[in-house]
């Protein structure tokens, strides 16, 4: 494997995933890196940077600190900043050089917590995985340590739900997050929290009250599994795209809350040998979109997922790709390719290219063109 991209972009990394997932929760998030991660994150991966406050910073690691293994500089700087800013928690995320020198992030976080009295987390990210990995790591850690373990499940008639796995990297800031909430509310659900757009840390801490969790992207799955382990809360997997899938997800949430069993809402989709369309993107979103296209337009769709995922989330016949070389053969046999515009250069002329910008791939470039296709809005998406 040559691991090359002659012309296409690259996905946001695990470090950005940690920052993005925790952005709205009032904590201090530190990227332990020399330079570059912070401006990459706030320029390309974080649409909230200009208008919404946060405490995301860079450690400014130097060659000498790395060679000498000087963790004390990092710890001291974090403690000093925490004393100034009074964050609700502290998260420290690693990058390539800390990985190479074997920085023990759990130990660093432990020392920081002892000195500040503030809950602290160390994430062994290394910039070599996607945002889904980083966000998933952060959400799982919060499920295990920040959610109140003594919380009792709601017994009110309305079913309570947490939404897991919403970041602007997958859902941008185009109203999709709000649309999912609106749909749940209109369907009679009581939303406890949204991990993590539009919720406070206090709401996240109350997540144990939920009767069921809705996992809308792969980044939410580790937290869903942890919440199941801790509270026995079942989960439903699927992004509510299109009227039919949305309706099914709402029904699955009710069934799952009652049965206690996990459900993948999009799993009953036929995949035929001949392919009308391929979709490139995050697994849960893309599988949900494929379901909607099959159900509402009778298209034969194949999902190509170039990101981390769980094999159980992919349907038979879909494909987990590694790099540009893996995707090209599938593009060549498809009649149409639905993907971020930065995939266009590798799309053959024989295939129709349908643009579906993805913030985690093209960043801010096509942000204004990212459609909100939640629920029945899908029908208005012109492709």
């Amino acid at each position, binding site marked *: 494997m040559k691991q090359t991209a002659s012309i296409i972009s690259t996905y946001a990394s695990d470090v950005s995933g940690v920052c993005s997932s925790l952005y709205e929760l009032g904590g201090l998030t530190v990227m332990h890196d020399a330079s570059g991660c912070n401006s990459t994150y706030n320029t390309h991966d974080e649409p909230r940077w200009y208008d919404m406050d946060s405490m995301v910073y860079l450690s*400014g690691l130097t060659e000498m600190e790395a060679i000498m293994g000087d963790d004390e500089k990092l710890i001291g700087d974090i403690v000093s900043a925490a004393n100034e800013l*009074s964050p609700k928690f502290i998260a420290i995320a690693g990058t390539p050089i800390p990985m190479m020198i074997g920085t023990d992030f759990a130990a660093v976080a432990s020392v920081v917590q002892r000195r500040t009295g503030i809950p602290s987390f160390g994430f062994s990210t290394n910039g070599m995985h996607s945002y889904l990995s980083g966000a998933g790591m952060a959400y799982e850690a919060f499920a295990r340590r920040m959610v109140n373990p003594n919380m009792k499940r709601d017994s009110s008639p309305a079913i309570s739900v947490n939404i897991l796995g919403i970041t602007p990297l997958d859902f941008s800031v185009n109203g999709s997050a709000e649309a999912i909430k609106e749909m749940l509310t209109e369907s009679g659900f009581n939303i406890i929290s949204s991990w993590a757009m539009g919720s406070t840390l206090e709401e996240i801490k109350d997540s144990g009250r939920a009767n069921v969790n809705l996992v809308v992207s792969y980044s939410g799955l580790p937290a869903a599994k942890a919440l199941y382990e801790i509270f026995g809360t079942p989960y439903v997997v699927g992004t509510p795209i299109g009227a039919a899938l949305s309706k099914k997800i709402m029904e699955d949430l009710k069934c799952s809350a009652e049965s206690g069993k996990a459900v993948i809402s999009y799993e009953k989709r036929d995949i035929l040998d001949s392919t009308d369309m391929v979709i490139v993107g995050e697994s849960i979103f893309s599988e949900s979109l494929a379901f909607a296209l099959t159900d509402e337009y009778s298209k034969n769709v194949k999902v190509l997922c170039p990101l981390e995922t769980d094999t159980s989330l992919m349907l038979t016949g879909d494909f987990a790709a590694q790099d540009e070389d893996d995707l090209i053969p599938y593009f060549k046999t498809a009649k149409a390719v639905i993907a971020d515009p930065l995939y266009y250069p590798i799309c053959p002329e024989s295939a129709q290219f349908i643009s579906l910008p993805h913030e985690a791939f093209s960043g801010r470039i096509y942000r204004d063109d990212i459609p909100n296709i939640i629920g029945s809005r899908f029908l208005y998406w012109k492709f």
Partner: protein
Amino acid sequence: MLKIVNGKQDEAGAGILIKDAKFPSPFVSGLEYSPPARGAWNIVHTGMLIPKSHQIFICTQGCLRGVVLTAAEMNAANRFSTIAVRENNVLDGDMESLIIDGVTDILSKLKAKPRAILIFTSCIHHFMGCDLKLVYRTLRERFPDIDFTDCYMNPIMRKSGMTPDQKMRQQLYSLLKPVSVHKKCINIIGNNLPTEESSELVRMIIENGFELKDITGCKTYEQYLSMAESAANISYNPVARISGDTLQTRLSQKHLYLPLSYDYAEIESNLNQLAAYLHIKTPDFTEEKAKAEKALKSAKEIIGDTPIAIDYTATMRPMGLARLLIEHGFNVAAVYADTINEEERQDFIWLKENSPIMKLYSTVHVKMRFLSQNSHKKLLAIGQKAAYFTGTSYFVNIVEGGGMYGFDGIYRLMQLMEEAFLREKDTKSLIQVKGLGCCSL
């Protein structure tokens, strides 16, 4: 604008009266904030100045993200490729073959062979002891018709000798090869932006029959290579000084370092050095000085006592500019700079003594995220970071001095200040564009 999370508006540590500031580092280093003012060029923008070149970055996904999208935002994705470093490469120690095979694979896929390839290795290669000599030797043998040069994205080295910016500007000219020298050719090197044709510097060169070359004006690879013919290189950005010294050693091109300045005596001294090199009579700059003085007076009449803030991305000499303005009666309230260059030591001392209550602000201190950005009073900023931090919509939108130089540079800057003072700008939109002046989206 930002809401304040915890109600704190305490500037201590992030802002200081200049009279209390220490040279050259007034602020204690700690965690760093990155404001959303992105006009300063990065190594991708600068590398793209070599016509018909192609960039290949070899680093981890997290590090690739910023540079690949820089290229995409410049609409130059077809001149940019990547090789991702993964955990197995670190464990297997196969970094050399990853680069050689990856570059070969990319070249086999490109529709047109580039004339030159800039290979950017990263911090991880430095720490792994990657044998880059072997890599480049192999690639040069395999592709003899392509010029390869070594470039670096290794910010971890930013405090260990040359900064990545200095190194980039040095490597930008590394593909120039020794050729016979043309005595009537002179280069201006090390700038991302062209120097104004109206500047005394450019006029003296052109009007005395010399040909002026600058990478910012090169359209073809041959034009770029022809810069090696020039007898001398002029640099005026401190980060490009080493580029000129390197070329003097490597290609025997005379290096004239004539730093950007706002001090009349230094400007004149620089221009006199140029005159001596050109073997021309020392020019009389009385008229140019008068024009600059008149422009300063006019700007002062319009701007009055309105507070002015300057940042280090607008000019290489923020202290010098503050001094010039204060000497001409302007109300310079603040300078945003994290460190002070040795070249500005005297201006810094002058400001401490003559404008002791002027504020000096860090741009990266953690508190800068929360300091109020709403200017209740009208304020004129020079530079994007100053505009962002003060929240003003009246600002001079330049980076790196904006190509303005000498007495003419002062005249032009005064015009820009007047215009900025009179016309509001959309700060949020303008300052978020990467690489001001390089056609980014």
